[in-house]
């Protein structure tokens, strides 16, 4: 069989292991596979924020790690730092901080951000050194590979890969379209 493939779909459903913003019963779920050192993800960051604002409780947003570590030398540690912050209840604060300070992602910066976010910075430093969240990040990554993630950022809207543009209007149109269908 030569392959005509249907659209790529998310193989790992959103669940307990995920970092989630928005209600579980939202009409639409947007999943982003991203890399904290990727300039395109940096560009997507305020776009997603605006889309979240405009859709409010109708949207659930999930971020999963997809660090391209051969290309972005700081991406793996940045992802682990976000997970470490998540273990202390501040994943999203760190997620935002990392994108806003994408130009400074050395370990010392990551630890400094932990301090600024009033996390236990020593614990975060230890967990980075011990690669405590390496497996979690790899699981995110492999779930992305299996789902047809083909670069960063890759978005999935209600489990289907979004192959179109992802400026605010394009994303909103796609999300609203799905949301209408659900209602």
């Amino acid at each position, binding site marked *: *069989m*030569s*392959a005509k*493939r249907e659209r*790529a779909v998310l*193989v790992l459903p959103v669940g307990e292991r995920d970092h989630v913003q928005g209600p579980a019963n939202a009409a639409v779920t947007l999943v982003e596979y991203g*890399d904290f050192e*990727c*300039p*395109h993800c940096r560009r997507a960051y305020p776009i997603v924020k605006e889309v979240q604002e405009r859709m409010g409780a109708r949207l659930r947003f999930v971020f999963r790690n*997809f660090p*391209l*570590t*051969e*290309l*972005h030398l700081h991406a793996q540690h940045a992802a682990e730092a976000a997970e470490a912050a998540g273990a202390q209840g501040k994943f999203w604060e760190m997620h935002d901080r990392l994108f806003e300070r994408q130009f400074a992602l050395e370990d010392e910066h990551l630890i400094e951000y932990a301090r600024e976010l009033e996390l236990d910075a020593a614990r975060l430093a230890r967990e980075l050194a011990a690669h405590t969240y390496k497996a979690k990040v790899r699981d995110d*990554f*492999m779930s992305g*590979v*299996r*789902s*047809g*993630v*083909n*670069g*960063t950022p890759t978005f999935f809207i209600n489990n289907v890969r979004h*192959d179109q543009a992802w400026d605010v209007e394009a994303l909103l149109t796609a999300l609203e379209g799905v949301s209408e269908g659900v209602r």
Partner: protein
Amino acid sequence: MTETMSRLAGGPLASGTEAPDFTLHSTPDQAVSLRDFRGRPVILAFYPADWSPVCGDQMALYNEILPEFQRYRAELLGISVDGAWCHLAFAQHRRLHFPLLADFEPKGAVARRYGVYRDGDGTTERALFVIDGGGIVRWSYVSPIGVNPGADGILRALESLATERA
């Protein structure tokens, strides 16, 4: 026969077809032949050009996933019509850890034999082939030219090859 048919149909070589052997430069002074990899699965990834202006492009993605391919003992070969010197610079720049083959002279000859040359554009399709250890195409896929196909299809194909053998 299948080969002739699918070539007449203008599409990529289909599953079950014998993969045409080739020898192409991987660096200015080294060449790689498909037959070198007999006994192991080979992934042929045709792509339009080095230096596409996105990060996390197709080759960078495969570079990250190499350990997964290696679990199946599979060899990944990237192929485009770019020359060996261009490949060398590109591979160094992106820190790629697999060979990029130059389908450069005569231009696109291998791509044509696999049914994935784009006349007019002068490049190849974004086409994937998984070839088994016996040199038979077991899976092929052509992605819309602007869409990076990712790696999920390749991994599924390798998995089903491995299941068969087991």
